[in-house]
């Protein structure tokens, strides 16, 4: 291999590693195109001297610039780079806290929710107002609804045709309360996640 061939191979090697995040078909296409460009451009020149090769490579720009351009359409859906780097995701810890608030009381009756509240208040992610909302809307998370479903499942009577009759009108009230508590819990969970993301931004 001549010294000028080595220059070209080095350039293409840099391009290959700079483009390592591209899908392989796209990376292969890019490498072929750039290699062909170099070959054709040099075939127009008088010779393949080192100066000619360096000129061709200089005009192409750095491999990193080319790879960056190739990667731009992969991130079309994401926000511009400036905010993308500054923006952090909601941490796993925050996510666990919110999930425990919702279902902790079901997994570990009573205690799970208490643990979630402790995590919530220990976190620096939320303001006191967020923490109050997370605690009071609604204590126990989905526990109330699940408790109701278990309770009514035991007490309601189902006919062979599949229709069920519940015992007593208080069940309707309990169901409504359970649903309100569940909706409130879910809404406050969504709110907390939103706030955590906002704080991370």
């Amino acid at each position, binding site marked *: 291999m001549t010294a000028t061939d080595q220059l070209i191979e080095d350039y293409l090697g840099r391009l290959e590693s700079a483009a390592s995040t591209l899908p392989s078909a*796209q990376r292969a*296409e*890019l490498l072929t*195109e*750039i290699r*062909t*460009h170099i*070959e*054709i*451009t040099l*075939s127009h020149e008088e010779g393949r001297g080192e100066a000619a090769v360096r000129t061709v490579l200089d*005009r*192409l*720009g*750095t*491999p990193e*610039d*080319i790879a960056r*351009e*190739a990667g*731009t*359409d992969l991130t079309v859906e994401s926000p511009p780079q400036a905010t993308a780097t500054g923006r952090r995701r909601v941490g796993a810890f925050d996510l666990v806290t919110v999930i425990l608030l919702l279902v902790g009381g079901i997994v570990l009756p009573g205690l799970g929710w208490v643990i979630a509240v402790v995590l919530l208040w220990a976190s620096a992610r939320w303001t006191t107002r967020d923490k109050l909302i997370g605690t009071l809307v609604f204590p126990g998370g989905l526990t109330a609804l699940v408790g109701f479903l278990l309770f009514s499942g035991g007490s309601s009577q189902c006919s062979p045709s599949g229709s069920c009759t519940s015992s007593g009108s208080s069940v309707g009230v309990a169901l409504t309360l359970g649903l309100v508590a569940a909706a409130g819990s879910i809404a406050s969970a969504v709110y907390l996640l939103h706030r955590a993301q906002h704080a991370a931004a």
Partner: protein
Amino acid sequence: MRRMEQGDALNLLTQMRRGALPYCVLALLRDEQRYGVEIVRLLGEVDGMVTSEGTIYPLLSRLRRQGLVETTWRESTAGPPRRYYQLTAAGHQALDAFAGEWERFSGAVEHFIGEGDPKR
């Protein structure tokens, strides 16, 4: 409102150039097929259009994946086979739509920013 600075204008022009470049490539292919090196050379002949020639290839690849251009490989009498690019029907449509809007927009900007009295 924040004062407009020189950096803002440069940044805006960079963005505009980036945005217009794909349509300049489509325009080069309006009437004929061309191969990559030819497209790169024609763009490079106009000052201020392209700084790194190599970045045209990712752009061409994107246009192909968007269905605006299609390619065929052809043998060459000198050098390696060449990949020729040509506009698809969608490419023609995209170019025509942009060209119309660009004419209106550039005319409007020129009306105010061009030399002399804007009321002329």
